[in-house]
């Protein structure tokens, strides 16, 4: 991991709320993280913890209303994406940041050929001619491992399998050689053997192209295999962040600890009973004034109800650069 390198993406104090009839949902609450060149940041957390909304907020993909990005700074290439004109933001989305979503079928347009969908950003953002774009599109399809690439440009999305469609999505995301690739549960809808193909592909592309990647998943196994650093989210907040080996070896947040214990393993000791995290995720109504995990936490004490814990360093390194946790409890002191 390139330590100390300048971050390509730097997010500070991001806050996003949804205004609903029932009140304000605080979906993302003061989220900060940065991404260095060539680094793969894994983001884990249960459904509704704010992973997707965080990433969509960065590049203005949320519908407003009901969404409102209320505070924060998103620095990419020297500019704050939260404060640039919409047309510039569109360029950033096409050329600087690539996106891959969970369900490739909903993000591909069924009425256009796969080729034209890869060529579109190339012509729009890179100024390539039609012929140049077609050549480049074939190259990209080959790069993501689709055999017979030139011929397959003329296929429609429904003629591809789920795994192939996800490869096409990756090809589109990579078309303009982005600095950052954001992959939101890119393999969740796929079978494990196809997931293994896609993970292999991304590892390979990363070596070749050296871009920085944010990989969102709820699967700790996937994270263990690909991430350099891991950010754990709960209730709209970052509750822990650490280098991958450190997070698995020395989890500090009660949620991370419990999560690691609930998943049965494929090898090793088979426990008689699974550990559980009792209770339900928080509803996230209103400004958080206490720890979001407190209703389910085994280590909760008075302070947890009175004060939402800030992130603090675990290993001495500044918050965001080493291992940090947002929790009042101190396992050593306890």
């Amino acid at each position: 991991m390139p330590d100390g390198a300048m971050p390509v993406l730097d997010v500070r104090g991001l806050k996003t709320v949804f205004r609903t009839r029932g009140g304000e949902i605080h979906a993302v609450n003061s989220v900060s993280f940065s991404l260095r060149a060539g680094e793969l940041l894994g983001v884990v957390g249960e459904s509704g913890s704010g992973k997707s909304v965080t990433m969509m907020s960065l590049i203005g993909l949320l519908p407003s209303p009901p969404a409102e990005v209320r505070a924060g700074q998103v620095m990419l290439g020297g500019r704050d994406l939260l404060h640039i004109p919409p047309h510039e933001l569109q360029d950033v989305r096409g050329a600087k940041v690539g996106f891959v979503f969970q369900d490739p079928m909903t993000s591909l347009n069924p009425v256009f050929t796969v080729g034209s969908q890869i060529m579109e950003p190339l012509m729009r953002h890179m100024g390539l001619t039609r012929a140049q774009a077609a050549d480049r599109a074939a190259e990209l399809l080959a790069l993501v491992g689709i055999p017979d690439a030139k011929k397959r440009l003329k296929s429609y999305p429904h003629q591809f399998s789920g795994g192939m469609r996800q490869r096409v999505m990756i090809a589109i995301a990579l078309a303009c050689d982005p600095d950052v690739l954001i992959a939101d549960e890119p393999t969740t809808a796929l079978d494990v053997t196809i997931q293994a193909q896609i993970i292999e592909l991304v590892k390979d592309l990363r070596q070749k192209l050296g871009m920085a990647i944010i990989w969102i998943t709820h699967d700790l196994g996937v994270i263990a295999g690909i991430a350099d650093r891991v950010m754990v989210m709960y209730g709209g907040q970052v509750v822990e962040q650490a280098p991958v080996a450190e997070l698995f070896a020395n989890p500090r947040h009660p949620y991370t600890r419990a999560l690691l214990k609930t998943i049965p393993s494929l090898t090793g000791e088979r426990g008689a009973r699974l550990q559980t995290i009792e209770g339900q995720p928080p509803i996230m109504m209103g400004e958080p004034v206490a720890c979001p995990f407190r209703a389910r936490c085994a280590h909760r004490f008075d302070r947890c109800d009175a004060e939402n814990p800030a992130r603090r360093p675990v290993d001495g390194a500044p918050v965001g650069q080493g291992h940090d946790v947002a929790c009042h409890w101190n396992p050593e002191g306890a």
Partner: protein
Amino acid sequence: MLDDAPQPLVQVRDLKMHFPIYAGLLRRRTGAVKAVDGVSFDIMAGETLGLVGESGCGKSTVGRALLRLYAPTAGTVVIDGEDVATLSPEALRKKRPTMQMVFQDPQASLNPRMTLAAIIGEPLDEHTGWNAEKKLARVYELMDQVGLNRAFAGRYPHEFSGGQRQRIGIARALALNPKFIVCDEPIAALDVSIQAQVVNLLEDLQERLGLTYLFISHDLSMVRHIADRVAVMYLGQIAELSPRDALYARPLHPYAQALLSAVPEADPAREATRRRIILQGDVPSPANPPLGCNFCTRCPKVFDRCRVEEPKLTEVEPGRFVACHLVTDNMTGGHRPAGAEAPEHKQQGEVT
């Protein structure tokens, strides 16, 4: 029965479920999706049989055909002494209470306009002549069993979380004291933190009520936790059927090997050094399965015979059944054909 040796509660023999394909203006029958194509297995009383495999390989279809939610194309399904596949409608109605299903999507399987008590009590309306009081008592008892607060009885499904809705589905399945339950991906729609709660509940109920499960899942780690034996399906057929520990320690069928090697593990050190078998290509269509072994288009160990002769599911070690020429040849001392070695293992995962 006098001896304590477990007896099969469920005996499936050569089960086939083909769905016709119609095409053209006249909707002529042009072929069939062979969703399940000759599947045989037993499930012992009180046992959990795991059923795993990739999407579309026929797991749900097996589960549904077992409960006669589909009329099987061929084969027998003997549950507790009766062939469910051929029961008359009236006999089937009587049989229904003993065999139940828990579905993947608790949301879709619960009527949004019925209260929780009405949902759980519905099977009692259909199959018992009990009065309201007796039914409510049973509903409360079931709610206790699955860990739902009795105060929730008058609420509607949308007021519950995914995990709670799955408890409702389980309570409903238990209403008529079934012996056999098909759990079709009962935790797939739930968050990791909630999955463990539901699996623990299923295990507790099995122990208390002596239930027999067919547990369908694509989560191989969870299947290792819950199942006693595991059947690995590929393209409508069973590739391997083995006791849990034997399968996870040493899968014999090349597909079972690839499948297990593809499962990511929550252990960075292991992940960095694991050898992964990356299968090339996609699963063929069940409307047009390959000749010979149905795995031959993707098998890293394929050899000539695989493309012409279909391997039969054979007991290759006590209790282990495998459908692969390579494995059966080894067992019978037959020599390995040339080209059968050199598995295309791919080294994966440098330390990052």
